[in-house]
């Protein structure tokens, strides 16, 4: 199907050893993402989808570690060597959009500096050039005027604005692959749709690939070409989004589908996409 995968994960097993027992958070998972492809990973909390994302980025928290398996980016191995070197190989090729915009931004650092770090890392670039790129990406993501926002601190922004900053940190380095780990879970329902729309647009305009982690099948249906369904650390089903949603094979997938439809009914009769308000508090 895909000739040269951008990201290839083979037989990945992530373990969290403790004194009593070793928890296998991800067990023998295979995933491939082609360039410009949009892939979703769905599953309930505890299914290992976030751990998979963190492992791909080399950001597992101790004592979690990759026990077996391989991760490669354009054929280059990412899972061996020490963690610092691994992360150096990833930088600017892969970037992550984190779940909680309230905790993933450094409270003592100006927005502009936090975004600039992602461009300047590992290469020499002149300051005005970096500043201009930061302002440009902030404005592209609807944070206007970019110059003023760049001078602010995280606590001076709303949740939706902060998540746009997190998005800017990921996009400003022009990565080939963006991994988004539940990018809207921490936000108000009204803001969720906006963030998803901006995420989708900015990925398309850059020709980047997207790996979207979500528990919300509806979100994945709107954004992704293919889906992996995860349960208890394993992939139970995968395929094209339309096939999976119309003709789920695994009972767990069917269960997820039913519960997401029920959520939708409960939430509102307005289609999900339209639920977000267009104006956000500044």
């Amino acid at each position, binding site marked *: 199907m895909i000739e040269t995968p951008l990201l290839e994960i083979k037989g990945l097993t992530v373990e969290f050893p403790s004194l009593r027992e070793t928890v296998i958070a991800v067990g023998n998972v295979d995933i491939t993402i082609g360039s410009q492809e949009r892939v979703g990973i769905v599953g309930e909390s505890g299914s290992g989808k976030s751990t998979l994302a963190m492992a791909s*980025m*080399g*950001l597992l*928290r101790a004592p979690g570690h990759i026990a077996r398996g391989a991760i490669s980016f354009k054929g280059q191995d990412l899972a061996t060597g020490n963690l*610092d070197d691994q*992360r*150096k190989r*990833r*930088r*600017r090729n892969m*970037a*992550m959009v*984190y779940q*909680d915009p309230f*905790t*993933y*931004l*450094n*409270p*003592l*650092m100006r927005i502009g500096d936090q975004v600039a*770090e*992602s461009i300047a*890392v*590992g290469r020499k670039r002149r300051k005005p050039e970096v500043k201009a790129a930061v302002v440009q990406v902030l404005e592209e993501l609807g944070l206007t005027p970019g110059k003023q926002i760049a001078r602010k*601190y995280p*606590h*001076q922004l709303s949740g939706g604005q902060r998540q746009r900053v*997190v998005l800017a*940190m990921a996009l400003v*380095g022009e990565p080939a692959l963006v991994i988004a780990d539940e990018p809207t879970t921490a936000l108000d329902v009204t803001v969720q749709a906006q963030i998803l729309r901006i995420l989708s647009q900015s990925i398309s305009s850059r020709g980047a690939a997207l790996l979207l982690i979500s528990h919300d099948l509806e979100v994945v249906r709107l954004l992704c070409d293919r889906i992996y369904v995860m349960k208890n650390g394993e992939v139970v089903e995968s395929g094209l989004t339309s096939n999976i949603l119309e003709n789920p094979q695994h009972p767990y997938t069917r269960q997820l589908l039913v519960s997401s439809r029920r959520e939708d009914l409960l939430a509102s009769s307005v289609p999900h996409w339209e639920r977000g308000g267009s104006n956000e508090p500044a």
Partner: protein
Amino acid sequence: MKGTLLFLLHRLMWAVLVCLVAVVLIFLLIRVAPGDPIGVLAGEQATPEYQDRLREQLGLNEPVLTQLWLYLGALLQGDLGYSFAYSQPVSSLIASRVFPTLLLMGVTLIVAVIIGVWVGAWAAVKRDSPVFRGTSILAVIAYSLPAFWVGQLLVLAFGVRLGWFPTIGMSSIRSLEGWDLILDIAWHLAMPVATLAAAEVALISRLTESAMREVMESDYIVAAKGKGLSQRQIVYRHGLRNAMLPVITVVGLELGWLVAGFVVVETVFSWPGLGTLTFNAIQARDFPVITGLFIVITVSVVLANLLTDLIYLIVDPRIRID
């Protein structure tokens, strides 16, 4: 900005009030403490008539509250009284001793903060390294040792036995100028600073380590790693600045404790500062000097706390009120 100024003004008002209450308490406490300066000044053979005359001369026969009132009035004009023992105004006596103490305190603080923060930060990051595990144990030991004992050991080892460092005073008797004088003072500073800084380094490194451990677990550190920043960048740019907040608070409070350390260490090394003056004044029951010194110390501690608030405002943008 306006809110921040109001906040500072508010703190300043409190600081003045605290100083005022402290002055009254210090004055009264010293008067009710046992020991009569007249006995020390007049000598054991003095006749009661002479003692009475002396008491009247020094204003010690007035009721305590009257004395307090007179003292406060004089204080407002910058007059701290007249030393019984040194026969000169207390204010000029104290002023002549301020520089050596400020020098000792400043150098101690700078040395202690630089070493303590560096050791603490890397001990938190390189948790598994045996070197930094060793520093944690060393810190507990250093913090537990009394300063007078450490000081005397240093005098014995490096001053008397090895003869590397001078054991007395702030400078040599030879008259020196320029760089030679500065080097000479630095040479004299080495041991008192080492004595005072040992416990401070221990405290600051332990504090930094625990704060840093917590910070390094935060999500924004994960995000910094995700950007592919080097470990040095993560530690200094993202980690340390956040970990400094609790350390700043404690170092500010610690200044009060440092004063107690100065009395001991200056006495051990015969450093010509406020600490030695305090020790001598207490031995001589020199009330005006003791009162003046305590007031100066109180005001310095209050000022140090104000400064801590100010530094906090600079470091943490979240508490700047818009």
